[in-house]
């Protein structure tokens, strides 16, 4: 059987994972796979870039698919190659290296790129990006920021969203003074309510990050390199580097040019198929039921469905959308958010615990006894369980404090006097306090003799000390 030619544009977390899923389903027997990746290396875990930036992780440990993985799996990876155009009639992709690559089926996994809002002074007169201006998206960006930051005294991050704050946290490690510039009146305004936003700001400030809210950057100052920012209110902030982190923008130009239906991103059906049945899209460049996802869990779910469909392993596979929960890990400030941050429906109930001085804030939004949103600031020890309940739409325990606090298990300590007679002292042999007491009252006073008579302490022996205490207590009457 001749293999079908499968071409994947993009070698990021969605593209490479989708190929892995296809291979897992025996796809190497069906397809000759070619991937185009603009970056010069294999696929890495983009989520971990902020850990690489802040020095808590080695870059070599974040690779999900190192270069030899492609070779071992007979996947042809063309690194450093961008897809220039697509001829859907001839089913051909034209690469930036001039190659014409034929396909039977094509997957768009082009991802997205940083959105840079319009401002003056981003480039030098010659049109190059001004030295000191960075975006934070790739491993290369990460290396450049790290390299530049060591020479800087003051860095500004434009954008107070998740990634911006992580970048800010990372920059502190390089010894520069860090400022976060945010357009909105609170940080992470999409995910957080006012109190949580305020608390997050306070802890960022505590960490040494200066936060400027409701500031709109107009101009990046400096001729040859960045020297400062100028805001719409006329104020300025001297700085020698700036990281723009104002969200992402799907890479859809290529899809639009070749005539696929593109709205906010490339429109796909429940099997990730675009308006052309031999072309799929997956990941941040895809728009499913009106939604575009920027987190990794949804991309991986999409990849599974796509693989099921394209390999025909499960022709009925369907992606039905994902629920979004995320956790921000900034040293000194733990934060987890999911779903809605505020009651939006008359059925909604908000449960709030707030300890502003300790920087702790917990909020649940519950609708019809399901968790529809939560914010945890400061103490996120319950985050894992809450994210599960949110994602599964699972029934909630009646006592809501169980959701907020780690209450499990702490054994109650009590005095021997308060302990009921039915309390089990020796677990191995099921001997209760009452049995020991009776044995002593019946005239056995030596602890060893009590143990032999009742078999307490004759199993693993862990309870022997306690048995002796009970015997003494019983003797004392």
């Amino acid at each position, binding site marked *: 059987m001749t293999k079908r030619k499968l071409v994947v544009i993009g070698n990021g977390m969605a593209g490479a994972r989708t190929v892995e899923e296809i291979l897992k389903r025996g796809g190497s027997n069906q397809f000759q796979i070619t991937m185009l990746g603009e970056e010069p290396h294999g696929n890495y875990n983009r989520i971990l870039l902020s850990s690489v930036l802040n020095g808590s992780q080695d870059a070599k440990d974040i690779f999900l698919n190192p270069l030899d993985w492609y070779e071992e799996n007979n996947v042809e990876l063309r690194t450093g190659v961008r897809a220039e155009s697509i001829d859907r009639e001839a089913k051909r992709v034209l690469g930036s290296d001039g190659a014409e690559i034929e396909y039977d089926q094509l997957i768009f996994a082009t991802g997205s790129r940083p959105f840079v809002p319009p401002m003056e002074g981003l480039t030098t007169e010659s049109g190059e990006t001004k030295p000191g201006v960075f975006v934070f998206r790739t491993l290369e960006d990460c290396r450049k920021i790290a390299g530049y930051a060591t020479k800087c005294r003051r860095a500004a991050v434009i954008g107070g969203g998740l990634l911006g704050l992580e970048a800010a946290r990372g920059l502190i490690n390089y010894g520069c003074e860090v400022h976060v510039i945010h357009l909105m009146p609170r940080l992470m305004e999409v995910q957080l309510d006012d109190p949580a936003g305020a608390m997050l700001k306070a802890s960022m400030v505590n960490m040494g990050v200066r936060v400027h809210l409701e500031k709109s950057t107009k101009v990046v100052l400096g001729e040859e390199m960045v020297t400062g920012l100028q805001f719409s209110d006329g104020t300025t902030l001297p700085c020698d580097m700036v990281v723009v982190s104002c969200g992402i923008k799907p890479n859809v130009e290529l899809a639009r040019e070749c005539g696929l239906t593109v709205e906010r991103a490339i429109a796909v059906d429940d099997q990730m198929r675009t308006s052309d049945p031999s072309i799929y899209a997956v990941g941040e460049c895809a728009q499913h039921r009106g939604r575009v996802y920027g987190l990794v869990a949804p991309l991986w779910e999409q990849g599974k469905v796509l693989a099921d469909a394209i390999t025909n392993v499960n022709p009925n596979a369907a992606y039905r959308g994902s629920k979004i929960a995320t956790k921000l*890990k900034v040293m000194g400030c733990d934060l987890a958010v999911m779903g809605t941050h505020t009651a939006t429906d008359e059925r909604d109930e908000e449960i709030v615990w707030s300890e502003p001085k300790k920087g702790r804030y917990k909020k649940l939004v519950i609708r019809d006894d399901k968790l529809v949103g939560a914010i945890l600031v400061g103490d996120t020890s319950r985050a*894992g369980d809450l*994210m599960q309940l949110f994602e599964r739409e699972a029934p*909630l325990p009646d006592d809501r404090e169980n959701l907020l606090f780690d209450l499990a*298990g702490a054994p109650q300590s009590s005095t021997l006097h308060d302990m009921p007679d039915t309390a089990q002292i020796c677990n191995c*042999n099921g001997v209760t306090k009452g049995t020991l007491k009776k044995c002593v009252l019946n005239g056995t006073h030596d602890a060893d003799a009590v143990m032999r008579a009742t078999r307490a302490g004759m*199993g*693993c022996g862990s309870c022997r000390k306690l048995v002796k205490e009970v015997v003494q207590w019983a003797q004392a009457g």
Partner: protein
Amino acid sequence: MSPLPPAQKLGAIQIPIEAKSTDTHCPYCALQCGMTLVQGEAGLEVTPRDFPTNKGGLCRKGWTSTQLLRNRERLTTPLVRDRKDGPLREASWEEALDRVAQGLMKAQNRYGLDAAGIFGGGGLTNEKCYWLGKFARVALNTSNIDYNGRFCMSSAAGAGIKAFGIDRGMPFPLEDIATAEAILLVGSNAAETMPPIMQYFDEQKRNGGKLIVADPRVTKTAEEATLHLQLTPGSDIALALGMLHIATRERLLDYSFIASRTNGYRDVQRVVAGYWPERVEQLTGVSIEKMTEAVRILAEAKTALILTARGPEQQSKGVETVLSFINLALALGKVGKKGSGYGCLTGQGNGQGGREHGQKADQLPGYRKIDDPKARAHMAKVWGVEEKSIPGIGRSAYELLSTLGETNGVRALFIMGSNVVVSSPNANLVRQKLQSLDFLCVADLFLSETAELADVVLPSTQWAEEEGTMTNLEGRVLRRKQAQLPPVGAKTDLEILSALAEKLGFKNRFAISKPAEVFEEFRQATAGGVADYSGMTYERIENEDGVFWPCASEEHPGTPRLFLDKFNTPDGRARFHAVEYSPAAEMPCNEFPFYLTTGRVMAQYQSGTQTRRVPDLCDASPRAFVEIHPSMASRYGLFDGELVKVSSRRGEVLVETRFSFSIRPDTLFMPFHWGGAGCANLLTNPALDPTSRMPEFKVCAARIEAPNPFGSTEAATVAVGENS
């Protein structure tokens, strides 16, 4: 004169063999605690014995074990059924054995050799396991033999073979627990399942060691832990991968060990990159702080052990789950050095020996593979048969049971030492399948729930009435000794098999039936195998407090610790496996919103065939229950101790609630020791691990509700039927 009541009849024959006291081992779990049986007024009594496994300690199961010898329900005569729906009646051994031989032969004549099947147990002695396997391959020529050990530690066995080239549950002695600076115990409630082992953990903690327990419940064992990771059922792989990710990030890996003694790390490294802490926290419900603490404890310890038990193993991805923890141990360099290693806490009394000597569908004695030509040639020589007459690989336990009575399935089944109606997953189906057989024979001590369905029931001798060897969880081979004569009317399993073989025309190959004789042939059978017992003798085992396999000659000291120089792989290196997390085969949903996990209680053992007949143990744990978090119970309007209905896609049970703050609110727990309306396995999911064929006992989706007070539910009807 009216016949004597059974108790007196039994009491009358309780004659000590020769000595007033006999050093032997407990009949129950894989710890095989040493005990001395002393003749008392009412019969044999248990006194503790200072043996390395238990140092004189015994749990209440051990203390009360001689009550089994005097139980009124003990079978002492064969029972037969004259027609399928007729009652069981007493019969002579001659008649009963004839019927068994005919039943097996008839099925084979009509449907082919594989239509006769054998189902064994992990409680049988090594001699019996060996004889049972030989009976299947030589006397019946059937490929269909398997055993309940599939439901026990088969996943750890599969993983051990993949990673280390050998499966010995603990490749080091128990004493290494006491000296380990750190231990990660995954899904084991040892404090209840084998309490005397806790001495070693106590000692470890006294020595300043740290104990980490991963379990969805705050079990008695978890209460002893320095750190408890209360993970979501079925998320163990994610936990292991997350811990490995954190270890990588924190630069705690032992790269020189990885380079010098392992293969395959690179593939694991790339998988691990996809399990960053925040993701794993969501998958497992274990906080990043706790995972990080656990990793640091393990990595910073000079000696560390990772031990798994049924929690991670009894999953449809059990082998991969164990491999994920082996990966962690390897990456931290905590394997193959004295004082460090990975081990599995085996469950059944002879769970280790039971899996080595040929009662497994794909295996020949000495842990040989049945499809290995050299192994076949060796066994053909030992058995004096043509190599080609030895059958190939047969069906694994659940596959064998779930196809009983079908066109290509087993039509006549012989069960020895297993109560599959209670212990198999999806127990309703297994019961139906047993009922659809042309012929069923059960050899047991008591009329178990499975024996009740049989056409012929054969009364076996037990434990203190017979001789043999057992291999405990450490790979230490022990002597089980006879302390009294069996009741008149019962035969040893070896005698039963030899007599049956004679009826099937194989007298010359089964001319012996004394344990010591069978042991001599068995030694030869294991010679040169992975689990080589050929250097062991009954005398040595007794004089040396047990001998660790492999032991290839009488001069060989035995092998308490494996892997110190090399692993049993062809190149001597341990193998990493790039395993990934996947959800349980069945996850909670709207209809069945809880995880249901199953396990044990202290006072009962396995399917309860024995322990449910010991009054002291029944008083302690009289019936099944479902453990639920009070906060979830109140949500469903349930009270503590109330009878409730728990259901899954496969069935429903009626049990009492037991409130506990020690369980995750999203999880229910049921012990599996009971049959009837409280049988946890009516609910469990038979989704099988692709390698070990282990069913997913530890995770399924379930619902809990107050039973309908009007009209009888199906389960209520069953309850009445079972209790009458």
